[in-house]
């Protein structure tokens, strides 16, 4: 009995085990990997894809997808910088409330786009795969239009804190990641809304017949992922100290891979925030290891692809047993 119990536990956390295996492998082969500093680096590097992955996990669990998150990151960074610049009239050191305004406008914009994606799904039945793909092009274009193609540098000197500051030795984005994790984790597991998300993704008709407002549920998920993407954009704008339209290209596929590697089903209804975190961490460790190993960038792509394939393979294989 305990034996099968152990086996079940093992299976449930197979991806975690694979992650640990990767950890051990990297720890023994990459110099500087096991330092506290590097571990914090990894966490900071996954902060933005991580929080977006949590939102994306909700979106995929509720049975939708959002391919526009990468562009959303870029446009959010640019929009924040643009608002600060316009509002402060090019002052050398803009006041804090202009920054607050920039952030507020960006979050509102993101919320609106998320709502709009959900609305298109509801009213016209356009699959989010295609509407968010179109949104991806539109937002990327907007980021370029706002900045006229070049980076806008408009932030006050303390602005770096959001993306590169530290508090008690830990980078600020790591705290933001933790907040996003707790928020989505609690939402998914301990609130009625969270359970509705699983219900809608698992059986939309059954959820509807139980009186759950399915469209509201879907829209909320679309809004949450957009807000996290916008937050990511703000963090990046602080990290590179400007609103730059070229950032986060292709991030949507990275985030979606992480979520799926973490065991969230593309068909909706199944998966966990914890799993999404494991998936993100897996990719984060992989990228960090690549840099530390420092071999040929071309080989890195191959190794990375092969390791992802291998991990997913082993994971599914254990699951099957």
């Amino acid at each position, binding site marked *: 009995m305990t034996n099968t119990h152990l086996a079940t536990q093992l299976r449930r956390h197979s991806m975690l085990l694979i992650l640990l295996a990767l950890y051990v492998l990297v720890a023994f082969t990459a110099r500087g990997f096991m330092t506290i500093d590097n571990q914090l680096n990894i966490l900071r590097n996954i902060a933005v894809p991580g929080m977006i992955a949590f939102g994306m996990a909700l979106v995929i669990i509720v049975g939708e997808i959002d391919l526009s998150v990468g562009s959303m990151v870029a446009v959010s960074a640019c929009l924040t910088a643009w608002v600060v610049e316009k509002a402060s009239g090019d002052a050398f050191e803009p006041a804090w409330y202009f920054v607050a305004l920039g952030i507020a406008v960006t979050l509102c914009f993101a919320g609106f786009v998320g709502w709009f994606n959900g609305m298109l799904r509801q009213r016209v039945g356009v699959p989010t795969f295609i509407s968010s793909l179109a949104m991806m092009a539109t937002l990327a274009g907007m980021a370029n239009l706002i900045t006229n193609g070049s980076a806008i540098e408009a932030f006050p000197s303390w602005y770096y804190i959001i993306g590169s500051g530290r508090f008690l030795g830990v980078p600020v984005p790591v705290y933001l990641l933790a907040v996003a994790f707790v928020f989505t984790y609690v939402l998914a597991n*301990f609130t009625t809304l969270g*359970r509705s998300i699983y219900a809608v*993704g698992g059986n939309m008709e059954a959820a509807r017949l139980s*009186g759950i407002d399915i469209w509201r549920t879907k829209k909320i998920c679309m809004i949450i992922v957009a807000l996290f993407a916008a937050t990511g954009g703000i963090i990046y704008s602080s990290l590179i100290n400007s609103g730059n339209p070229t950032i986060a290209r292709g991030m949507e596929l990275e985030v979606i891979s992480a979520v799926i590697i973490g065991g969230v089903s593309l068909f909706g209804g199944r998966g966990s925030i914890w799993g999404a975190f494991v998936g993100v961490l897996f990719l984060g460790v992989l990228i960090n290891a690549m840099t530390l190993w420092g071999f040929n960038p071309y080989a890195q792509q191959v190794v990375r692809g092969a390791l992802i394939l291998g991990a997913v393979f082993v994971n599914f294989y254990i699951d099957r047993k």
Partner: protein
Amino acid sequence: MSNLHFEGLTKHYGAVKALDQFTHKFESGQVHALIGKNGSGKSTFIKMLAGAIQPTEGQMFLDGRKLEFQSPGEANSAGIVTVHQELSLVPGLSVAENIYLGRLPKRGLLVNWKQLYDDSRSLLAEIGAEMIDPRATTGDLSIGRQQIVEIAKAMSLSPKILLLDEPTSALAHAEVGQLFALVDRLRTSGVTIIYISHRLAELPRIADTVTAIRDGTLIGSVAIDKASPKVILDMMFGELPPLQRPTRHIDKTHSALSVRDLELAPFFKGVSFDLHHGEVLGIAGMLGSGRTELLHTIFGARRADAGRIAVKGNTVSNPSIATMKAAGIGYASEDRKASGLVQSAASHANLCRVGQKRIAPSGWTNLALERPFVDKQVAGLHIKIGDPMAPVSSLSGGNQQKIVVGGLLNNEPDILLFDEPGRGVDVQAKRQIYEIIWDMAARGLACIVVSTELEDLTDCCDRVLVLHEGRLSAEFLNEDLDPKSLYAACMTGDDTGAAA
């Protein structure tokens, strides 16, 4: 006390009048059976009352108050609760969450998991289903148990009006008994129940009145003591000729299929029998006794742990669907929606799928080449379809079942395995399917029929085997077929089949 009253209730889907000018009054505190053949509009009626769809015109009243629902939630708060025909559970969630879906108990902002599980446990105990663990994942339960969860979910809403759309079609006898006891209890406590079923035999046991709809129109309503089977059938179909099972002489010298010591852990073991040309063999058993697995194993869809299968005297060395099909076996699945038909595809495509290699042996095909095969089955089986190119999902259950059979016949099989051919199909359609089976048997086809409804087996088969606790425990020849002894044979020993 709650009187339900309808004035000219109508629902149109484009040109289809699913329900037309339905005017009727249901007395409160009674069980009202609603009957009608497939596609007559029963579910449509229920769905309107449940707030799942809105009427095209007409009104509904409860105690003189007009009912207008924009969503199922509003119907629930008015005390109208529905168990729909299609299971509406979320497979990935726990039993408790499914029961209280959309109404999880909260503590502050968060879900109160302890209360949720406690409430569910006591609710399940109340309806006599304490063997179901409220923490179990719903998708892992058998269909029968999922149906019980569905009913528990309805009960948790403390209904004033309870609508049951074919709740028993997936239940075995013991579970049906439980359900009826529950319905009795609710009636005593003043709940009005509208009950849809194709199992006409159970009506006297449970209903107070019988109301019939035909082609979307109300035919009439009678008290149960006036509702003899003939009256009921007349209301449903107009005049219906009596069913006559032909008695056939079966040549037992050559067996079409012989199964020896077949084993598939943990379902069955040591299963041996012979099936002869021209014979219709039934397999009875409790829900979950492993009959589907047995058919799957014979058909090569699952690999046996041990045993031997011979078709027309030749042992099949490596059974797979391909080899079994080539040997002349066809299988009609128990679940038309999940595994019998491609719902998104046209009737045409569904009729041609199984027999593809026979229709187009070269691998080249086209609609004109396939059409004769479609037309042949549509005519031969009297399948009612408008446009054969329309998705099969738009057909009624009975006609969908005929499409399944027609598809198999296009492959010209020698042996056909029918898994629950009568599930969710009205009496007339069921008879037509029996007649088709007999017809085929008369032409030398051998058939195995699995059904949870024992009457189906007694009506249809020449011989019935009973699968009990993983073994073939009894055999009945056609002369001593009657549902009661069959039922007794299925039930001997304890009822672990349904409870395990």
